[in-house]
């Protein structure tokens, strides 16, 4: 650009574009662009998902037979600890943060997050946290489970446990920074024409998630720092030999880790509320009910933690109190599920891969929700606590909810992120394998737990062999199911069919810019013309409106 080319109005905009073209190396740098950071989060999280999945497959291989023959019981405990920690702290939390990063500014018509540098710092805390944790496997893995209850966690090896604590402290810090950023961005950076009640439901879900992160994560950090003192400095906050109380750790741990379940699943509740209306061509049913139920879940999620401790050192009144609060949380969750169902009812459902995963989400999450209400009932929980019934329950919630949700989101927003369409046929194959494998793995675990198989064991009573073999076969199918997805994603990213700006003809703002969006997101900040879900009012958006390209020159140049 030279001074001779300056034109009064249009030039500053095009100058900005030409000066800031996206390079592939941006994805490996300290970029402050929320779109780059979002993709960095998602890809990093997926790598850790593969690692966590490999650990799980090793565990299922071990459990194919009652005897500890594939790995030693010691190694098995390392596997189960790392599997839980990696999946929760390095896969689901960063995946949710990745979606939020990518989508929030686009959905509310902002040019970036409120604190772009903080955003980049939050992301760049994740790789060290993850590499640290994974590396512990090669020295001395932590073996006290992802809950890391003392006194066991204090006498299974200082190095592994110390690494585990440090890794989670780093990851937790990243999460807090991210949560703060999301909240401020959503509250302060919406386009002027967008009131809170015209905001996409994903943003509502992220408000609820961010509040939970900000309130509960510091408590986990406190618990872990005290645990680290016990471990390294020999204090006795939780160590009974010095007069400490191990039950206090459990309270502090679950004060974070139960809300954490909602931190894992609420972003995907938000995402499915975006996907279903678009692919069913129908407004979301009960916008306000779904929006406010996120906040209700977020509040109730803070006062249910001791239901993880019904068989621990909790007095009777406390067991009864937490039973009732836990039961109540089924109501707002039910509102959401019924709302999604009613959205589908009377719609025109297109069976895209995104929609298939959304349907799988509802079908499996329902089972996790039902078993969750059962587990809330104290007398029944006393029987099944710490058994495979619980393992089945939380995998139906976290795999059926979060993992199906992340896949759904990727199929839905991949065209926006990369400017290429994903292959639908392979998407359907991926869905079928995942759905079958998931149910085959986790459904038998309900019966195993009820019949008397406790969790976290490398060797088990041979009467449980048959169902365990079924579960192991299911886990292999799940492992295989990721192959079509990986090939599809990489191949589509490189060679997929070019995506128009709005391939699903959606109404939310992220589709009203190019695919992928320009660096500054929008040429001109958009003005809200319709609500986010106003389908059926005769307004059908164009797939590829020509005016989007007016500033960018030829359409072909917009890749």
């Amino acid at each position, binding site marked *: 650009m030279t001074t001779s080319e300056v034109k009064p109005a249009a030039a500053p905009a095009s100058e900005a574009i030409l000066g800031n073209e996206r390079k592939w190396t941006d994805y490996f740098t300290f970029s402050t662009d929320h779109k780059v950071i979002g993709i960095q989060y998602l890809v990093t999280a997926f790598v850790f998902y593969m690692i966590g999945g490999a650990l799980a497959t090793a565990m299922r291989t071990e459990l194919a037979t*009652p005897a500890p023959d594939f790995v*030693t019981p010691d190694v098995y*405990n390392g596997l189960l600890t790392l599997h839980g920690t990696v999946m929760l702290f390095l896969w689901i939390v960063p995946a949710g943060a990745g979606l939020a990063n990518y989508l929030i500014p686009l959905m509310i018509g902002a040019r970036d997050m409120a604190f772009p540098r903080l955003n980049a710092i939050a992301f760049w805390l994740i790789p060290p946290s993850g590499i640290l944790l994974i590396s512990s496997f090669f020295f001395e893995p932590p*073996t006290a*489970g992802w809950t890391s*209850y003392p*006194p*066991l966690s204090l*006498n*299974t*090896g200082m190095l592994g446990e110390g690494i585990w604590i440090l890794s989670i402290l780093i990851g937790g810090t990243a999460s807090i920074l991210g949560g703060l950023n999301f909240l401020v961005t959503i509250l302060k950076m919406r386009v002027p024409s967008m009131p809170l009640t015209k905001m996409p439901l994903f943003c509502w879900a992220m408000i609820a998630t961010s509040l939970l992160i900000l309130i509960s994560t510091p408590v986990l950090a406190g618990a872990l720092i005290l645990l680290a003192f016990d471990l390294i400095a020999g204090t006795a906050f939780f160590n*009974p*030999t010095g*007069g400490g*109380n191990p039950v206090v750790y459990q309270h502090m741990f679950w004060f974070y880790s139960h809300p954490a379940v909602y931190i894992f699943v609420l972003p995907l509740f938000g995402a499915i509320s975006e996907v279903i209306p678009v692919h069913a061509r*129908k*407004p979301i049913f*009960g*916008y*306000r*009910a779904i929006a406010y139920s996120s906040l209700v879940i977020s509040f109730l999620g803070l006062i249910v933690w001791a239901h993880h401790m019904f*068989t621990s050192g909790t*007095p009777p*009144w406390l067991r009864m109190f937490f039973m009732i609060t836990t*039961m109540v949380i*089924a*109501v707002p969750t*039910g*509102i959401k*599920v019924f709302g999604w*169902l009613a959205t589908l*009812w*009377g*719609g*025109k*459902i297109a*069976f895209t891969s995104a929609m298939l995963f959304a349907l799988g989400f*509802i*079908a499996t999450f329902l*089972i996790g929700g*039902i078993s969750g*209400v*059962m587990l809330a009932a104290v*007398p*029944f929980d*006393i*029987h099944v606590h*710490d058994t495979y019934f619980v393992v089945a329950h939380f995998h139906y919630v976290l795999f059926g909810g979060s993992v199906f949700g992340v896949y759904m989101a990727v199929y839905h927003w991949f065209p926006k992120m990369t400017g290429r369409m994903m292959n639908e046929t392979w998407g359907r194959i991926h869905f079928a394998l995942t759905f079958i494998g998931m149910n085959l793995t986790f459904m038998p675990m*309900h019966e195993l737990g*009820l019949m008397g198989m406790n969790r*976290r*064991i*490398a*060797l*088990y009573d*041979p009467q449980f062999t048959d169902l365990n073999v079924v579960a192991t076969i299911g886990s292999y199918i799940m492992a295989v199911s990721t192959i079509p997805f990986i090939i599809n994603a990489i191949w589509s990213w490189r060679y997929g069919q070019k995506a128009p700006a709005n391939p699903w003809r959606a109404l939310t703002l992220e589709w009203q810019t190019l695919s992928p969006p320009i660096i500054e997101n929008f040429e001109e900040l958009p003005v809200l013309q319709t609500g986010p879900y106003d*389908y*059926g*009012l005769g307004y*059908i958006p164009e797939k590829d409106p020509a005016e989007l390209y007016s500033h960018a020159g030829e359409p072909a140049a917009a890749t």
Partner: protein
Amino acid sequence: MLLGIVVTLISLWYGQNHGLLPVAASAEAILVDGLFNVMMTISCGLFLLVEGALIFSIIRFRRREGDDEDGVHLEGNIPLEIVWTAIPAVIVFGISIYSFDIYSEMGGLDLMNHNSTPTEAVKIAYAPDLENGDMPLLSDVGLGEPPSSAGQPALEVNVSGLQYAFIFTYPDSGIVDGELHIPSGQLVRLNLQAQDVLHAFWLPEFRVKQDMIPGQETRLVLEATREGTYPVVCAELCGPYHGGMRTQLIVHSPEEYDDWVQSKVAQGNTAETLANLPGSDRTDAQYLANFVEPLDLDIDADALAQLQAMPHAHMASHS
């Protein structure tokens, strides 16, 4: 309407015939199973209803080829939303009340009455006169005596958990054993404690479980209703051989139980019993050897010998 009746009938049938629970061998188990069957009936109905609606929508409301139109513009329906808020609320309220009732029948609330053995209160320097009675929310932990028992005397057994065994001590007769023997039809009070890390004492056929916490005694009171041999399982991760921390519960008829007590007292060799329990000075292989027989594990002698030749894993050095 017809559909509703069919769903109800299937749910009612499945709630009673799910076959998902092991045999019920205690008074507590019968109560818990009643609760589970009710929840299973409701769950089954809800499951069929929601999954049915989902599948119906998928078939009936699928997009036809070439139809690019939108569906009907329907933003919500307040009465319908109130209905599906109210129904789950009523259901969970009902389950809560039922659970509360079952829990008090199992003796869970008994511990709130401070008539049990008073624990020695810790004297706090700045408030030396503070007594337990000033803290109404503190109480013993576990399950107490069911209100229906009306002061019937209970057989007392002290249970100690350690990596990776349970030790049962009978204070009345001085018996120490690695297996739990109890008479049927009598209340048994188990005082649980842990010596090293957290353990949990679980009797699947009795549907009761309670964590064993180092430094805090917990309690279970139960009543066997069916003679037989049942597993005792540790249900809290306690180390690599957590899966092997199991023993047996043998429910005798009262007469058989008296015979067992007599023979044990006559033997009087509690020291030998203790020596046979897995202590903390053993190698991995010795731990494992202990579990091969009771678990009927498929480990051949070669594998065991191989393990024996291996150097200590870090577990042994830390415990």
